[in-house]
């Protein structure tokens, strides 16, 4: 069966690095977002009217849980090596992944400079070391620490980080991205 899961969509063309949300976007609803916001309100009202407000509420529970349970909010840190952040769960799909690619503000980070730490004690691998024969395994509730070495960003500026993961079992690419201003980690 063959099932698209929650969040599966064909939104790739819209959300691909070359067309994604502008990196200087600010929180809140700016003018260019007013149209989609009103559309969402209309759709929400339509769903609520047809199926009851409970349904909107329940959909929101799921969406919020996904949004807060993958990327650990405010974990994006700028440090001497570059950027790092934490994932608390696999992004949408569990299992073994044959490749992981990362972008910061639409610029791909070379896989040799992407380090992934899993398990306790942390075992680190670079994204370049991940392959179909040596996949990265991601399980529910198991955190992954991500270090993007030699990535520099402007101070106090939001960046958009994008991940693309390729499952060994199911072809469609899984993608996840977040926008946040990194905190600066104090020097030891």
């Amino acid at each position, binding site marked *: 069966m063959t*099932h698209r899961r929650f969040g599966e*969509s064909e939104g790739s063309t819209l959300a691909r690095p070359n067309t994604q*949300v502008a990196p200087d976007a600010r929180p809140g609803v700016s003018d260019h977002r007013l149209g989609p916001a009103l559309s969402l309100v209309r*759709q929400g009202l339509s769903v609520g009217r047809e*199926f009851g407000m409970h349904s909107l509420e329940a959909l929101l529970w799921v969406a919020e*849980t996904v949004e807060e349970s993958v990327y650990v909010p405010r974990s994006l840190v700028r440090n001497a090596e570059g950027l790092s952040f934490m994932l608390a769960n696999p992004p949408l799909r*569990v*299992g073994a992944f044959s490749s992981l690619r990362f972008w910061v503000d639409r610029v791909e980070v070379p896989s040799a400079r992407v380090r992934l730490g899993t398990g306790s004690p942390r075992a680190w691998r670079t994204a370049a070391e991940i392959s179909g024969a040596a996949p990265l395994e*991601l399980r529910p509730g198991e955190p992954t620490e991500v270090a993007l070495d030699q990535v520099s960003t402007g101070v106090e500026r939001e960046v958009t980080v994008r991940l693309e993961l390729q499952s060994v079992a199911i072809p*469609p690419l899984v993608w996840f991205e977040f926008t946040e201003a990194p905190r600066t980690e104090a020097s030891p």
Partner: protein
Amino acid sequence: MNLSAASPSGPPPNVPVLLTSLASAVLLDGRGDLELPRETRGALIDWGGVYGQLIRLSGPWRLSLATESGATALSDCLTGVEKAPGRWRSRHRLGRFDVIQDIVAVPSPSGAIRTLSASIPEGPPASLLVVSTFAPYLLPVLVEGIRPTAFHVEASSRGLTVRQRGFALDYRSSVTPSRMFLNRAAWGGGRFQGPVEQVASHHELTVVPGRPATISFLLSGGLERDLGPSNVADAVLSDPNAAARAIDAADRTWEQGTPILRFPNAPGLERAYGFARAALRRLYTSPGEGLTGLVAGYPWYSSIWCRDLAWMLPATLWLGDFDWVARSLASVFRFQLHAEVPLLGGEPGELPMQISPGPIFLYGTSDTTLYYPGLVAQYLRHSGNRETAAQWSAVIERILGWGQARTDAVTGLLRHGGEAEEIATATGQLTRVRYGIDSPDTTIWDSVNRREHAIDVQVLWRQALLAAAELHEGGASASPGRDWVQAADRIARSVRELYPWSEEGYLYDSLRSGAPVARVRPNALRTVTSGILDPDLSHALVLRAAKEDLTTPWGVRTLSAKDPGYDPQSYHDGEVWTIATAWAAEAALAVGEVELGLRYLRTIGERMDLEGGWANECYRGDRPEAFDSCFLLGFSVAPFLTTLFERLWGLSVDARVPRLEVDPSFPSDWDSSSLEQLRIGSGVAALDWTPVRMRISWSGPDPLQVRMRGSQAVVAPGGSVDLPVNVPTR
């Protein structure tokens, strides 16, 4: 209760244990704890735990026993397991203690009860510490791989309650815990908010010779607003046997109402029917909020997926459970959209991809909606219930409207792909976290791109049109059926003109930008029983699909091994799928390739035998090894069942007349076969076949018209008739 003797051997290894009630499920590996490590998308993941209202309540739930000489996990002191009515039982021995554990899935409150009964044979009283640990999950199963990171925990008089947004679980025991722990630190009660990796409770028992000490645990929940009053949970906890008895009684009643099939010449097939029927029963769900249906599968598709439901409902009709089918259809139709909702990937007239309590529902498949007119027509033919079917005429018209909006003006073919693209469009510009899976298309093989006119989608669209026309003719729809028949004919002409692939003696898989997509997939077999193709081409398709690049000894691949894109572990580009094997069986029997059809059916049956009665979703394409596979999928058992009735027995019914047509496809070396308790409307038929005659008995209120090839007769109520088997079996 009729239990087998305790045995340390137990069931075959690696056979999951699935206990269900209509609102809950319990998953375990049969070693004593609620653990179930399964290969999942290439990695080992533990799916053990309790599921309530289609929400995963807990991760693995473990019990350990501590005595003066140390602590031991329940699974490490296992001495035997037993299947028991309505429950699963394990026996354990630790020092002087003999412990019996019973596990029961309970529907109200939705969850599971575990009861330990500890005894010692003689000597002074002894103390036993029972330690229970679990991790809360509290998220619907439709979100495959996420365990929430923050919870609200609140102590209660008998245990605790854990909440995560609108989801909640209640955990209590019959013996008050002596100590509680959160995240391995002692917890004095009250309230806690934050990450919860583990909940643990300690319970002290004193065991006296001749007087077993008992403790029961209840872990239940789902939607927070559905958490019932505490005294209801306490009542269930105080009498776990009552829940087990109720489940067993309901199962027995259901099974007693289903057909009995006997194949004396094929005992394996007869056994497989029993497995498949029992497995389908385990998928029945009524999780609350008026929803009824069948769960798609376990462990990770434990929700109502409407495409999967559509494959299960025909089998449910043949099993005679018309009421469950009507309630399932009504549940799905409640969520038909009347307006466009890109946020959920839905368009007017569309039926949901998935529904679960909340209600939570999502749209965006190209095929799900198309199954349902045919299901309503089939429901009407089996049940004869015109009144109920007539209530859905507007639903069917909206379905056709949805399909017509996607119909190519030139070819009449349905265009698919891009069903859900607006989900990301609608949400992506506003949120600071965005995510998705680039599913390019949403046919039954939804991990691959089969745009724009996959062959099986065209068959479905044509069936939907013809079913709507049939319902119109039957007075169940007010819309003109004439145009729908013409539209169906147009599809058939286009398929005959555009899809034949002469070099392969097969059909193209799809058309894209006007060009054929030359890939050999089993989906083309869906045309064989559709009536679109001429018999010679249908026969050629069956023989082509039987070649070893598509057919393996363990089933049928989703893509030819000769295709450049073939990957033996790719979900829909090489793995063997049980449903595809059932399609091949159906097609082979339909064209008179009886031995081939039987071979496909036996393949499915043998797999079920090896899998302890379950039916895997899929297997690697290069060896008979389940990979990335739910151990039970409704979509694997139901088409097998349907094929037994519709193709091996060759049955079709119309309860409105009432009429039974039978055209069996039994092999030439069979000498008998029988079928009892076949419901047709409010009557019941029985069939008894020998190579010489078919005896049909009938107990309905009106005479039954029967047809078999060139013969026909009328069976009076309470009577029977013998028809000559005057045409050699095919």
